[in-house]
């Protein structure tokens, strides 16, 4: 296990665990609120932020974070205002963000070797400063979900009833989508924006069928995410294949295997 002696490997493991904790929590909320499509839209629109950062020559993660939160807020407002056509608008923003990213990169002088790493992840290239930013985001997301847990639970369970009780559902809805945005930015480093959806949805899906509380669903998803990430990293190292794809391969394989195992609910 001398591989663990390398700093890039330590960083990769730390990034994987941080991303897993956040994926477990936010992914569970994404799955029970059925906003997987919005999350996909946010993930792809975030590419616009990557393009913007390269063109302006600024650090990628902070710029992408700001851009993604902005795109997430636009989508949150659209889903609140125009419910019945929300999916169409999200589809448009999805594509627009990606196109913007590519155009901005085209306009940037020089050849960008890093491009693929944002699409498919580059967990082995995570730096110490990336880690600090990820840790900060993780703490923020964790605290917000903890603070408003009861609200998120009642909104996710039955939105109409929650509204009738006077729960500020609109606020929680926007907050959740912004949190998804933050989460997406974190995971982009690990598996890339194209594969984000798998890590956000597969662990919660496996967990949901085997628990009867949202809290334990989040905990089980987190544990599964950690296992998938570490197993994927190890496979990627030993077979010399792309880390993001290896992590998703482990996750999807587990997903299909889990379908074969009968579900058990307490």
């Amino acid at each position, binding site marked *: 296990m001398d591989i663990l002696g390398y700093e890039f490997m330590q960083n990769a493991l730390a990034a994987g665990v941080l991303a897993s904790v956040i994926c477990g929590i936010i992914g569970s909320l994404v799955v*029970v609120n*059925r906003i997987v499509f919005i999350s996909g839209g946010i993930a792809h629109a975030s590419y616009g932020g990557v393009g913007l950062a390269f063109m302006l020559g600024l650090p990628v993660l902070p710029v992408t974070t700001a851009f993604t939160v902005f795109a997430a807020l636009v989508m949150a407002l659209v889903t609140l205002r125009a419910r019945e056509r929300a999916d169409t608008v999200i589809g448009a923003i999805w594509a627009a963000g990606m196109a913007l990213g590519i155009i901005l990169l085209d306009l940037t002088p020089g050849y960008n070797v890093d491009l693929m790493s944002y699409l498919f992840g580059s967990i082995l290239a995570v730096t110490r400063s990336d880690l600090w930013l990820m840790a900060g985001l993780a703490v923020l997301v964790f605290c917000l979900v*903890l*603070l*408003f*847990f*009861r*609200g*998120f*639970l*009642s909104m*996710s*369970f*039955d*939105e*109409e*009833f*929650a*509204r*009738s*009780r*006077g*729960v*500020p559902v609109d606020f*929680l809805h926007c907050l959740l989508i912004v949190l998804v945005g933050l989460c997406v930015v974190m995971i982009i480093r690990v598996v890339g924006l194209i594969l984000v959806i798998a890590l956000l949805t597969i662990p919660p899906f496996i*967990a*949901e*069928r085997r*628990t*009867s*509380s*949202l*809290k*334990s*669903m989040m905990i089980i998803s987190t544990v599964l995410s950690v296992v998938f990430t570490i197993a994927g990293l190890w496979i990627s190292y030993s077979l010399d294949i792309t880390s993001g794809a290896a992590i998703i391969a482990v996750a999807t394989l587990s997903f299909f295997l889990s379908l074969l195992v009968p579900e058990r*609910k*307490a």
Partner: protein
Amino acid sequence: MSEVVIDLKGVDYSLGGVSILEGVDLSIMAGDYLAMLGPNGGGKSTLLKLMLGLIRPDRGTIRILGLPPGEAGGRIGYLPQHTHVGLSFPISVLDAVCMGMVRPGFGGIAGLSCSREDREKARRALKRVNLEAHADRALAGLSGGQKQRVFIARALVDNPELLLLDEPTASVDSANRNALLALLTELNADMTIVMVSHDISSLARGVKSVACVNRHVHFHAAPVITGDMYRMTYGTEGGDSCPVELVTHGHVPHRVLGTHDPNCDCEHGCGHSHGGEGE
């Protein structure tokens, strides 16, 4: 007990240019037990949603418990017609009932779970709908009728002043349906109840007044079915539909719901007599 709990004046509501409710005036006093009858699409559920502040009227004023709709959340118990709960949502029956005690505003959404005291209240509410034995099971494992009773427990767990129920007896079997209607009569001693139903035969014991909702609202201060109400609810002049869609032999518990207009659809034979040979 003479305060007005629900007060609607000149309320219009339309959706995409189609008028759903027109010129609705309705005033319900505390302690009433109102059954809202009407055909599908007549606007019954819409009326409940207006009262809850889930949707806004085009015109007119609404006051619920003396407040604008949506501001008395913690004092109203609500049973939605279609609970939008995912089939596999991971929650126990007891926790689902606890959702009925979430307080309005930002104070209510903070925190991790409900208190020991709230759990005790939830258990008592489950006992009232005859489900206390299932309190710790996963909600996803219950049948449709059992889930409906869980949601009724959720509506009444916080001892609301006003109970708004949208089709409470839907998908509940007849034994539990009778128990449920008896429970509502009992609860009516403490709270005002508004119950939506598309079925005239659900006009239960204990109902004190009736409102017919079919774009317009007609209020009747006594639990009787008139020919006008019958026509409005079922929307037929020629009498080609019958309010009791039940054909059976033997000992059928049966109630006669008042006489229809003499000029109404008598040749159809909707005057209900008790089941033949069993009597």
